[in-house]
């Protein structure tokens, strides 16, 4: 909708107490009174929780009864709540871009908890600035884009296969790209699975179903070489190594998909430099499984050491699966040869939930000995024993052994970094992919149309990897099923009368949203533009307008701020 030129600007300001989050620090009643005095404000109200259904109905009522055409909410953060309030405006027939959010929680009551008065004064400034900007807001439309009903799953381990299975079983064309010569991921390296010693082959049966599913195309020995495009329309290049009659050749394919699921898994840390690791007498759990698999296990006295390379300052996280893995292997060894002596030296045993704790209990019943070591004085591995400080003895104990097994954590693959750049999604300080919200959006990326599952996100066991694969598929299905997706209207626009075609913006854009069109003009592809403003700030001719953050909108805020400092 477009505003008639002479329509009066009628702003409503809704100020949230957010329980005591805001109301306990700021003087909300006085802020409400203050807002009334601002230009174009015709209605103000304060709510205990503006986002509650009660608060939302109050906004609706306010819009209706006062004929509001701009809505300002002073509350928490647009990150979580802007879509909600914009939705309410839309429901009431207002263009959602006529909504302005003022954050008086993070920016006032939370950061200035100790000074109520100054925090309130800052909130006054921010509200005044918000109202000034609201007066100049323009109606914008969201862009609708078509969604290709197909998906790419990067990684063919258990998590990726689970995701692909769900997608294909809902009728979506699905492509799996796996860098190894066959599907299966870490399952291929495991001997048995905890807690019931299931043969990994039983789960790997999924592989055969996937390979025979007509909707799933699998590319093994393949990697992603480039990703272009955006939600609904990703253009992917896949590079495959193909072997024919002993000759290796590279082949590149282009595919188009609507959504991407990242399921690249993780590696197991090779503990070079820890506890005299040599891969022979001091080995990892993974190497132990290899021995067990090949039925080559002959050792009599074994010491396992937990948290090797994890829960230490340089890698502080708990890898969650190593305690169960150690116990699983210990029990298998003990079952094969009850005479074997096994010690598990640990810091804390991680057997979280129902069946894992039971497993721990049973492991102890079978005579496997658990003893705690002191993280400040880690065990010492000699050529025939392990010496460690024992708390109950208040002194060192030496355990004779012919094999030391180190439990090392899952770590991200280094390739995650280049993939994250191609996808323009973040990774964390360790190299695990970083989801949109650690609590409520665990398998979404903040970039639309891209999802994450399995141990490339965080260490986890097989059921967790499977449910995450399902979850990522569910999140992707929402988009693929709709066939359409709408993207924000707050994008850059180039004024061709001012543009001198210098292409500075084109190089500056991180999202490849600026290009030359068929008439050789420099233009913005709105669906690709994230509205970051990097182009606008570099344009020497001020030819780029950031819709929803126009120069005069921002200048009005600055003016409103300065206006306040003279009177305050």
């Amino acid at each position: 909708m477009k505003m008639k030129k002479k329509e009066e600007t009628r702003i409503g300001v809704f100020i949230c107490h957010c329980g005591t989050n805001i109301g306990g620090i700021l003087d909300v009643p006085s802020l409400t009174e203050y807002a009334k005095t601002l230009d174009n404000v015709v209605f103000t109200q304060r709510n205990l929780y503006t986002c509650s259904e009660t608060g939302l109905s109050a906004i609706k009522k306010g819009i209706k009864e006062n004929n509001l055409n701009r809505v300002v909410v002073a509350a928490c953060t647009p990150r979580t709540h802007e879509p909600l309030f914009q939705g309410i405006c839309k429901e009431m027939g207002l263009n959602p871009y006529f909504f302005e959010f003022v954050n008086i929680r993070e920016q006032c009551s939370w950061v200035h908890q100790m000074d109520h008065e100054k925090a309130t004064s800052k909130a006054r400034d921010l509200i005044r600035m918000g109202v000034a900007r609201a007066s100049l807001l323009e109606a914008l439309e969201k862009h609708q884009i078509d969604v290709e009903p197909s998906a790419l799953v990067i990684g063919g381990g258990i998590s990726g296969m689970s995701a692909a299975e769900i997608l294909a079983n809902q009728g979506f064309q699905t492509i799996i790209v796996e860098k190894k010569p066959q599907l299966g991921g870490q399952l291929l390296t495991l001997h048995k699975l905890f807690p019931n010693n299931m043969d990994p082959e039983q789960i790997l049966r999924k592989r055969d179903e996937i390979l025979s599913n007509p909707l799933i195309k699998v590319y093994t020995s393949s990697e992603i070489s480039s990703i272009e495009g955006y939600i609904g329309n990703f253009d992917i290049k896949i590079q495959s190594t193909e072997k024919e009659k002993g000759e290796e050749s590279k082949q590149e394919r282009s595919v188009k998909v609507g959504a991407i699921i990242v399921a690249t898994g993780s590696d197991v840390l090779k503990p070079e430099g820890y506890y005299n690791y040599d891969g022979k007498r001091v080995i990892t759990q993974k190497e132990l499984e290899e021995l067990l698999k090949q039925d080559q296990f002959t050792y009599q006295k074994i010491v396992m050491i937990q948290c090797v390379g994890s829960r230490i300052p340089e890698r502080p996280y708990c890898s969650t699966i190593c305690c169960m893995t150690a116990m699983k292997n210990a029990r298998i060894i003990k079952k094969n040869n009850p005479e074997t002596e096994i010690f598990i030296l640990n810091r804390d045993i991680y057997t979280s939930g129902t069946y894992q704790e039971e497993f721990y209990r049973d492991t102890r019943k079978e005579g496997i000995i658990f003893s705690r070591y002191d993280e400040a004085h880690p065990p010492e591995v000699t050529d025939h024993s392990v010496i460690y400080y024992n708390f109950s003895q208040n002194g060192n104990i030496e355990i004779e052994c012919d094999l030391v097994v180190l439990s090392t954590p899952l770590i991200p693959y280094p390739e995650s970094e280049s993939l994250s750049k191609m996808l323009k999604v973040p990774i964390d300080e360790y190299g695990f992919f970083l989801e949109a919200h650690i609590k409520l959006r665990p398998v979404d990326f903040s970039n639309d149309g891209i999802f994450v599952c399995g141990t490339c996100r965080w260490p986890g066991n097989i059921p967790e990897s499977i449910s995450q694969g399902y979850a990522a598929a569910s999140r992707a299905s929402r988009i693929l099923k709709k066939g359409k997706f709408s993207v924000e209207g707050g994008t850059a626009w180039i004024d061709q009368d001012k543009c001198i075609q210098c292409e500075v913006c084109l190089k500056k854009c991180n999202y490849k949203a600026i290009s030359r069109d068929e008439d050789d003009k420099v233009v913005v592809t709105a669906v690709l533009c994230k509205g970051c403003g990097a182009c606008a700030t570099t344009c020497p001719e001020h030819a780029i307008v950031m819709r929803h953050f126009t120069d005069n909108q921002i200048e009005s805020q600055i003016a409103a701020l300065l206006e306040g400092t003279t009177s305050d």
Partner: protein
Amino acid sequence: MEEHTKRVMIIGGGIAGIQASLDLGDMDYQVDLIEQKPCIGGRMAQLDKTLPTNDCSICILAPKLSDCFRHPQIKIHSLTQIEAVKKIGKKFDVTLKRQARFVDESACINCGQCVAKCPVKVDDQFDMEMRKRKAIYLYYLQGIPAVMAIDKEYCLRLKNLDKNKEVCGLCQKVCPKDAIDFMQTDELYHLETDAIIVAIGSNQYDPSPLHLYGYKRYKNVITGLEYERMISASGPTSGHIRRLSDNKPPKTIAFIQCVGSRDIRTNSYCSSICCTYSTKHAILSKEHDPELQSYIFYIDLRAGGKNFQKYVDRAKNEYNVKYIRGKVAEIKIDENDNPILYYEDLNTFEIKTKKVELVILASAMIPTKNSDKITSILDLELDEFNFIKTNLETPVSTNISGIFACGTCLGPMDIPHSVVNASGAAAKAAEYLYKLNR
């Protein structure tokens, strides 16, 4: 697509049920979300902050509640429970019982005038009975649907309906919308659905049988969920930490782990969320009062979730939280109601005591109260701890085709796991529905 004509019923309106509803609703399935309480929101609505980011729980939950409420594909059935299920062909014929609300849901505007006038005070279960509410009430502030309900056990009029004269009725007199309806009755109705997702959540173990801890005997020994309400801004003490014995702010708090868990007398399993939620409590306590000292008594410290171990390290280093490895055997009190803890220090193997001013019992997650009823109606297989049984390779599928499960009814788990599970169950349900009739 024909999907929009297919229905899924989701039993339980906590974060897992909400997430599953939103995913399936967005896929254009018809979703019936069944909640036995007056409002959806579940346990997460009762929490103050969430770890490891200390995000305000209701603040991140509230937009999801509204999304559910406003979603064109989702219908919320509040105060409703399932009574029977029959499989007819490929469909489930579900008998539901809606408990009388005595308030017209479409008329009530949640103005609160009735609450102000209602003369009856009742223990507020949402606030863990740490304050009183009225017999007519909103289940919780941000609750959805945002309408009142009358508690028929306590309402003077409803208790005396069989008498000749009309008792009280103040709420009806002040209601500007004429929304009060004392004649409402419980109602049985049927819904046909193609698939079901069970997300009935869990309860907190009541530690009173562990009499050596003195819960309910000692005023200054409370549970984790009670503490959660206490530190919540919208809770019974408006977020102030207080001893229940003398209303004074405590300066020392002990958090005891594995209460009703990892204990063969009660529940042998690990409740999995307590080490980290106690860590959160200790951090928040320090933020409430920089002079406060917290002690966490534990057996094994389990912080496996994303960034959880770092959160524990932060508690130790930045908030000076003391982690003491040792299981508390008994709590006594001194003449000032200060709890005295008797424990074995597992670093020195000595028996020690510690006097504090408040004790929080990190009480375990157990299957929800009417889990037995619901799971037997649905004929679901349970594990040895009475959580719903699933398999390693099918982690959200039950023994009944077309019925899936997610969240803490599968066993103790945190919010991200519940959300993952919920989307996972939604995916499996969508797959099942797509294959139906094909």
